């Protein structure tokens, strides 16, 4: 099996960059990583494939992403203020598809959140559809499949 180590490096650098932006709440810079039609999806049903015809925890087009960021940054949301910090680690990166205009990547993510003095952990499988371009990648789709999407989550006032 031939691994595209250069591509693997490039996509890994990109998703680590995204992860760093989110942990450090650089939400405006994060919004710029997306294509106009990009979808940020956190499914409630891990077997779903047609997300628009399924109830999700989040299904954000560009307008909803901007609104989600505005809510987190507004200072009006008491739960967003109570979220101290998140710290995520991404690993096990695998390129599933390496097309000229679409790169599909899957990786494992563990996100830790500190809230009210309690540590909460969210392991997830994350799949990216990335559009390569002159300025680097843009996100066409990000699907965060939480390991416990099917069971009872705590409330979430950050971005996975």
């Amino acid at each position, binding site marked *: 099996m031939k691994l595209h180590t250069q591509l693997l490096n490039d996509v890994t650098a990109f998703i680590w960059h995204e992860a760093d932006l989110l942990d450090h709440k650089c939400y405006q810079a994060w919004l710029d990583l997306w294509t106009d039609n990009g979808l940020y999806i956190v499914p409630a049903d891990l077997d779903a494939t047609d997300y628009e015809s399924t*109830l999700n*925890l989040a*299904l954000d087009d560009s307008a909803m992403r901007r609104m*989600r960021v505005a809510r987190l940054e507004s200072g009006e949301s008491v739960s967003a203020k109570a979220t101290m910090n998140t710290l995520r680690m991404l690993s096990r990166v695998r390129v599933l598809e390496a097309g000229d205009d679409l790169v599909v990547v899957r990786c494992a993510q563990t996100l830790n959140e500190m809230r009210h003095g309690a540590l909460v952990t969210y392991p997830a499988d994350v799949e990216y559809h990335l559009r390569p371009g002159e300025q680097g990648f843009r996100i066409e789709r990000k699907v965060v499949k939480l390991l416990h999407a099917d069971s*009872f989550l705590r409330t979430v006032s950050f971005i996975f």
Partner: protein
Amino acid sequence: MSELIKLENISLRAADMVEEGRVHKALYSDPEIFEEELDKVFNNSWVFIGHESEVPDVGSFKTAFVGRQPVILSRDRKKNLHVLLNRCRHRGATVCEGRKGKTKSFSCPYHGWGYALDGELRSLPKPEEYDGVIDKSELPLQRLRSETYAGLVFATFNDAIEPLEDFLGGAKKWINLFMKQGGGYPLKVLGEHRFSFPGNWKIQLENTTDAYHFPIIHKSFISSLDEQAADIFDFLDGEGFVEDLGNGHSVMVMIPELTDLEENLDEPIPDRFQALADELAAEGRSDDEIRRLVRAVHGTGFNLNLFPNVSCSMAFFRVMRPVSASETEIQHVALGGEGAPAPFNRKRMRLHEHFQGPMGFGTPDDGEAWERVQKGSMAGPDGWILVNRGLNNLHRSPDGNVAGAVCSETGMRAAYRQYKAVMAAGEEK
């Protein structure tokens, strides 16, 4: 200093901790009271299990809880519904796992006892050793009494209590109105959000009849709406009301214009639903149908609280389960129309995602407030929770019920009155 009653020095009696207009904070955190609640409230009332549409076919099932006890809602070969204790009669393993599904029978994984969809024990491996020892007909999955109203399935362990319809009483009228939001199609469960919060179940019971908190804690949600929609949610000074429907049930009407979704069908299409109307028109839907669907898409303008564990809340069911005195699980069940146009059901799901669930723009802030109520209930040796808002401004509703302003705490008082009655039952004064 010593004027405060030291609660640890007196014997706690839950029913005495509910007064008209205030309840004691120990009701949120005392583990003994919690055990008593499981027994007297959840194992002794009509408890909401699910909606018929969740088990549409022969062999459909869903799992649920009555208090702490796992149950199965199943549809048998004659299409009858059953609520069964999820516990094998041999050595007690659960016979059914997963949220929902379809099966021909329930087969225990441990030693292979097989139960029919109605709970009857049908088969067991190597039966010889049981000859003359057991009689299969005496060992079905334990069946709870269950009854259905307008598609809502309830069950109870108490064979002696009143029929479901008598228990629902004044709430039935509001259930019927709630069911109109399929836009001319039967109501159908589209999916659900699940989350838990570290707090007592009654904090949540209070919340769905609490309009007072809306503009404060949900400011960030309101900011995300266009002006027309934000205006609709600005209801505290409007004509809304809260009505005590008896037996612990209450209705909080926030947006009176959205009480009956089959009325006012000639209103202009709101801007935020113009895209939906266009999509429906492109599908060839008639103008009449488009108006009916658009009017229904946002749900009703009221929250109907049914004691003890379900609320028909504007556009969804809020179902709760007490896990411990300081832990509660909640389901926000999204609804649409069975056979309704896909754009309508899609829009209903997007609206649900916008506010509800662990990642919505509303629920996380509710959760934060509830968590703080639980935390605050630990402060001080003594303390009361006030539910007396609007006691100075009550009136009789057209149906003859006690009612208060939309942001009154009339619904909480209704629930606590029932709670007190149930908790006091069987005790000597």
